[in-house]
């Protein structure tokens, strides 16, 4: 049975056929690895290594400085050659630790398997996740230990594992479900234990029938895990929409999933959690889909975090044609790169090189009020108003039209026949409101 999705949404061509059958391959790490200190939502991590120091695989190189922050570990062994601002995927210069890879991959002595899951207490599991620097690997990179520590007064009823992977091109989660179903389900069980829940749903979009089959077979060996098939529709992988689809409950605006007793965790985050419990190895690599019409070869790679984009692209033989845009993440919510110097970080699920034709940039026209944006908005907003009011700088009206409900999924801009950059208007509007409030204080 396929669970019917939330209201609204779009059906872009999913483009997953190129990579869904490609096995995950290990990508060799290059000579120079770059570790930005901000790979997560929250405070910058603080370096704990010195210039010239020799570090090993899995060794802590930067420490979380706040509760909402995350540890950072080296993914190679080698020498710290610089701690300086480097290009971050988001386009700004961020203080980064640069390590020269010695190609020996000497593993840090501290990396040791943990106790078996049945012996671990919930607090110990959260501590392990925290120390390993695990963050939400669906893209937002919210520190997972924070998510696993909801306020005491909020009772969590169940866990949803997000295997929707609704972005076009992306198959990294799909391959993880196929190749490591045991890891996903083990991680899921560990997180259930940490949260103290007995029921969890692994929600997978119906276009990944093989992954669903594999997970259902493997789930027989685990307690309380139900695999559910959800409608293929963008943005199914959005937290609030997925909860709506799976449970029929809507998270009230301004509230978090924990407020209605649900926690949502990404597939690859589960696999990473399983890995750290079983082997002790912190989060040092992730699965990245390489794709797009301009890329020479489509691939699914296991990439060591810190590998610059240009080294990944060189590995597949560069570009077939001049790319119009190079993205980290999917084409709907990913970020366009300024430069190929930027490294793969914890939240990077894909590197996509789009051709002009795929990017379909086109000419912007006036809004024709076709109301398609209103029909597709999964948050029931009126995106055309953000454009109109944004142009007029009417900040009060923007807020009255609930601009802060927008999660910037891009469905409106995708469907817009006038090719208006609606998400850009929304982001600008939010920033203007925030800065005007700051001034007012």
């Amino acid at each position, binding site marked *: 049975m396929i669970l019917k999705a939330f209201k609204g949404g*779009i059906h*872009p061509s999913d483009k997953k056929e190129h990579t869904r059958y490609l096995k995950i391959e290990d990508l060799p790490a290059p000579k120079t690895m770059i570790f930005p200190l901000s790979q997560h939502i929250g405070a910058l991590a603080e370096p704990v290594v010195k210039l010239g120091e020799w570090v090993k695989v899995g060794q802590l190189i930067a420490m979380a400085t706040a509760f909402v922050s995350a540890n950072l570990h080296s993914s190679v062994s080698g020498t710290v050659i610089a701690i300086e601002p480097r290009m971050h995927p988001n*386009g700004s210069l961020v203080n980064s630790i640069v390590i020269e890879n010695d190609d020996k991959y000497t593993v840090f002595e501290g990396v040791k398997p943990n106790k078996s899951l049945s012996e671990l207490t919930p607090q110990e599991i959260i501590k392990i996740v925290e120390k390993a620097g695990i963050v939400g690997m669906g893209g937002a990179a919210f520190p997972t230990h924070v998510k696993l520590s909801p306020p005491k007064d909020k009772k969590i009823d169940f866990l949803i594992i997000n295997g929707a992977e609704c972005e*076009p091109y992306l198959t990294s989660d799909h391959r993880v479900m196929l190749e490591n179903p045991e890891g996903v389900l083990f991680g899921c069980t560990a997180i259930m234990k940490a949260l103290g829940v007995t029921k969890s749903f692994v929600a997978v979009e119906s276009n990944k029938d093989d992954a669903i089959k594999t997970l259902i077979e493997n789930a027989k060996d685990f307690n309380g895990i139900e695999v559910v098939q959800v409608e293929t529709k963008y943005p199914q992988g959005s937290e*609030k929409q997925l909860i709506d689809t799976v449970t029929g409950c*809507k998270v*009230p*605006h301004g*509230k978090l999933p924990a407020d209605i007793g649900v926690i949502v965790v990404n597939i690859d985050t589960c696999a990473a959690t399983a890995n750290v419990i079983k082997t002790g190895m912190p989060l040092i690599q992730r699965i990245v889909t390489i794709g797009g019409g301009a890329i020479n070869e489509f691939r699914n790679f296991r990439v060591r975090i810190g590998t610059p984009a240009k080294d990944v692209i060189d590995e597949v033989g560069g570009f077939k044609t001049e*790319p*119009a*845009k*190079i*993205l980290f993440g999917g*084409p*709907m*919510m*990913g*970020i*366009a*790169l*300024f*430069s*190929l110097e930027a490294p793969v970080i914890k939240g990077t699920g894909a590197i*996509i090189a*789009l051709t002009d034709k*795929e*990017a*379909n940039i*086109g000419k912007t*026209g*006036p*809004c*024709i*009020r*076709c*109301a398609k944006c*209103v*029909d597709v*908005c*999964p*948050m*029931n*907003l*009126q995106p*055309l108003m953000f454009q109109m009011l944004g142009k007029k700088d009417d900040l009060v009206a923007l807020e009255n*039209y*609930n601009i802060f*409900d927008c999660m910037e999924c*891009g469905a409106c*801009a*995708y*469907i*817009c*026949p*006038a*090719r208006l*950059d609606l*998400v*850009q208007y929304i982001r600008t509007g939010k920033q203007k409101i925030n800065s005007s409030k700051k001034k007012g204080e």
Partner: protein
Amino acid sequence: MNLLRVSSSPHIRTNDDTPTIMLDVIIALMPALIAAVYFFGYRAMVVTIITVASSVIFEHLWAVAFKKPTTIYDLSGVVSGLLLSFNIPVTVPLWLPVAGSFFMIIIVKMCFGGLGQNFINPALAARAFLLASWPTAMTTWVDIGTKLNLFSNPDIISSATPLAIIKGGVHAGATLPSYLNLFFGGVGGCIGETSVLALLIGAVYLLYRKIITWRIPFTFIASVGVFTYIFGGSTFFTGDYIYHILAGGLILGAFYMATDYSTSPVTPMGQIYYGIGCGVIASIIRLWGGYPEGVSYAILLMNVATPLIEKMTPPRRFGKKRGN
């Protein structure tokens, strides 16, 4: 450092843009145009071509006069021209559609800011303008099969539209065409409104291509049906609602005019209220008003109410409970 092109997400777009939407509307109007030529003869085509060409030319001249990039390639001028020609009788003198196009494009559309900015339906506003200015020319209907001269029609024997016959009065004694005649076409009326079948073929195409949704046309037609069924007969609940749905400009108006993007609400609930409002006003005019036909004025009146309707019907934000 070699910098790449960046922009805000999303990085892919659907293939449908404004010109392809307009092209879809043009395609959807073709069956009705073919039906018009079949029933009214080649003069229907001549009137249509003149209306469309003059609309496009006026839009281009506006751009030239104000030294702005021309907007004719978005094809909206072609759509407006087609719709205006569908709303005038085939017998009009050939300068009349040009006057209509001028009013439609220059006054109603471009003066208010062009595509997407006009507050009333350009084609219907132009029709109202023509009807007020040249009432005789705009209400001279002919029987199907009458041979029409291109430049002068001195001896037209005017006939009545079905709705005028229902209304009684001057045409007392004329016989009503059958339902089937109304459905397949071949009754007196404007160029585009003669064949319900042809209009429905286009409407199905528009719904299939998701250019329009069901909300406005279906509520419009259903409310005309319900209203005329209740109040249209000599006693309550005896009205000939099928006749009211099939006759006149209702199908053309409901699927092609009331759904005009710029002048209809963008909110889903608003579209439903708007459709019902159109249906009720059209029925009131038809049953008790001075005109036999009320669809175009109903749409124009609801156009003006659109901003208000939109304000009153914001979509319920995600996660908000009913009633608070």
